[in-house]
């Protein structure tokens, strides 16, 4: 389709640009009048929050990189110098450091939202899978970022995690050497991690773009898990959801600010304020809190290769989640058993996180193994069977008339209409 775009903008400058490059028309279509289900609850803020978080990380990261020295001799001191001597360097660093934690908090809630309300189901399978790719990229970025301050946990975390690849048969050792750029974690490792840590966020941005495009093809899911049927069921994105996302953004920034300004080191590990020393191993090597559940899965398998496979399997299983969950009903609101099991799953993951932060001995090992087993049981056994066995509650006819077709079951509309919201 070649030809100038017929722009409806009145302003001559905007019209001139829009005729040749219809960016303004696109923005209006995708973020202005974009029809959005009118019954979102505040869980639907977290996609926008993740986007904001990504931008904050890139912005602070660029300025940190201007003052960072990617060498084993200078990295630790340069980070201290940023905090002490660079103008507002402490702010940059603490925002970036806690921004990683905030990012995972936001994304984990975003994922919980997707699982609870069945947002991954047809036709949004690819949207969900792209999301899992973003999660993987985020994890790689966060891991490499944590190495950069070159503290004890940076160094030993990098050693432990890169060594995992040596469990791969035949090519394992070769891959590890390639990752290290040598025969141990050292200056070349730090250099390539810095390079990749700078690159990855832009890759994430690209994949996020695909995520948003896919979202705007299918449209958003909603707490009822039924498709909008008429115009009555939707609202234009602006101003309804721009303002609702803004409320969420303010609360999010509030939590973020409390971490950054009052307890910047709260979520970190004290050992990372000791400069990396290959000759001294910390008592317990633990990753950042957001990796602890996966770390627990890794450690609950006695064999190295088995542990690595299980850990990556814990993410890989998310890729096929749309096909493991056989229930045709999306929202947990209408799936009484699934809804309860969702909370059991959350508790399971939290317990895994707790165990992951503990030394692997005694009861911790057993609890870790039980929870690991349940993690996979949930996806591989419970979801496929439950979808076929469970009797869902009757679905409402449409988003606007959630009460009309109600039979005997509990009223989802009553649960939906929070007193704070006038939906």
């Amino acid at each position, binding site marked *: 389709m070649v030809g100038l775009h017929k722009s409806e903008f009145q302003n001559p400058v905007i019209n001139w640009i829009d005729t040749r490059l219809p960016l303004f028309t696109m923005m209006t279509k995708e973020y202005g009048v974009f029809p959005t289900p*009118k019954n979102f609850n505040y869980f639907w803020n977290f996609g926008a929050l993740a986007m904001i978080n990504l931008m904050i990380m890139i912005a602070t990261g660029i300025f940190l990189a201007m003052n960072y020295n990617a060498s084993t001799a200078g990295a630790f*001191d340069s980070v*201290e*110098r940023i*905090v*002490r001597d660079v103008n507002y360097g*402490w*702010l940059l660093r*603490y925002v970036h450091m806690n921004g990683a934690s905030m990012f995972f908090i936001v994304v984990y809630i975003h994922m919980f939202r997707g699982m609870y309300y069945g947002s991954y189901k047809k036709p949004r399978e690819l949207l969900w899978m792209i999301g899992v790719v973003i999660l993987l990229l985020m994890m790689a970025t966060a891991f490499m970022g944590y190495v950069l301050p070159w503290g004890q946990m940076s160094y030993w975390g990098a050693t432990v995690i890169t060594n995992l690849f040596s469990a791969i048969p035949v090519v394992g050792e070769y891959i590890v050497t390639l990752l290290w750029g040598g025969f141990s974690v050292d200056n070349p490792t730090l250099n390539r991690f810095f390079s990749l840590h700078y690159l990855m966020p832009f890759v994430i941005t690209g994949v996020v773009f695909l995520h948003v495009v896919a979202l705007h093809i299918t449209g958003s899911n909603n707490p009822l898990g039924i498709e909008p049927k008429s115009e009555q069921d939707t*609202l234009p994105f602006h*101003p*309804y959801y721009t*303002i*609702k996302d*803004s*409320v969420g953004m*303010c*609360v999010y*920034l*509030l939590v973020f*600010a*409390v971490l*950054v*300004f*009052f307890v*910047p*080191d*709260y*979520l*970190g*590990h*004290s*050992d990372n*304020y*000791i*400069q990396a020393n290959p000759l001294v191993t910390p*008592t*317990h090597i*633990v990753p950042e*809190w957001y990796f*602890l559940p996966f770390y627990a899965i890794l450690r609950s398998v006695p064999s190295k290769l088995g542990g690595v496979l299980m850990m990556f399997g814990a993410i890989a299983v998310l890729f096929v989640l749309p096909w493991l969950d056989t229930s045709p009903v999306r929202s947990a609101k209408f799936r009484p058993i699934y*809804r*309860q099991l969702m*909370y*059991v799953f*959350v*508790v399971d993951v*939290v*317990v895994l*996180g*707790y165990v992951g*932060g*503990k030394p692997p001995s005694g009861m911790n090992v057993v609890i870790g193994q039980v929870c690991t087993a349940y993690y996979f049981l949930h996806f591989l056994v419970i979801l496929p069977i439950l979808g076929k066995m469970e009797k869902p509650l009757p679905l409402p006819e449409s988003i*606007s*008339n*959630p009460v009309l077709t109600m039979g005997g079951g509990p009223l989802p509309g009553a649960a939906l*209409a929070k007193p704070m*919201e*006038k*939906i």
Partner: protein
Amino acid sequence: MQTLRIAAVAAMLGFVALAPALAQEMEYPHQNWSFEGPFGTYDRASAQRGFQIYKEVCSNCHSMKQVYYRNLEGIGLSPDAVKAIAASVDVPTIGDDGQPAERKGLPSDHFKAPYPNDKAARAAQNGALPPDQSVIIKAREGGADYIYSLLLGYEAPPADVKMGDGMNYNKWFTGHQIAMAAPLTEGRVEYADGTKATLEQEARDVTTFLAFVANPEMEERKRMGVRVVLFLAFMTCVTYAVKRQIWSDVHH
């Protein structure tokens, strides 16, 4: 159902709240510090006494290489006093003839380390390396409470403990055997401001100073934080009010 949901939320919150404590094995007795809390500031007099202890005691073995003499203005010393302190140290330089020489220290110099390198430190310290003290408060579980406890934690070893050569028993140190001999004793320093130099007072003062050098930006950070939080709380209310207004025409 409700119970499950509450359990899930509680478990999550509990995890976030306890995450840092997970790996911690010891509980150190908590002290009241001037720099605690959202409005905490460094007790200037205490930090200055703490600097005196660092200068007269700690700095004989421990470096503090991230810190500049100019940073001392942050604990209330005048620029002239800082200049004098810096000038009391000779720092290595290269002379006009290209040969190694020494010059008087400047406020822009880093704190001079007691040893030229780690090997020299180990050689002089029975094989042990006295850790750099720039961020020691942040680099230890328990932070200020730990350092304070450690300084007061020297005891005679229990009868059944066999001490290593040149090691000292400290009830708060991991493994209880520490290479550092008890650094502080009653009256170890004579405070310029006339404060009585009890062991507790010395430990408290030097810990306050160490907390300052680990987080010299803390007062500015918290001041800014209070303003940012107030602003965001206000913005949250305004935004929520606007949201209610905009959504007021949306019905079922």
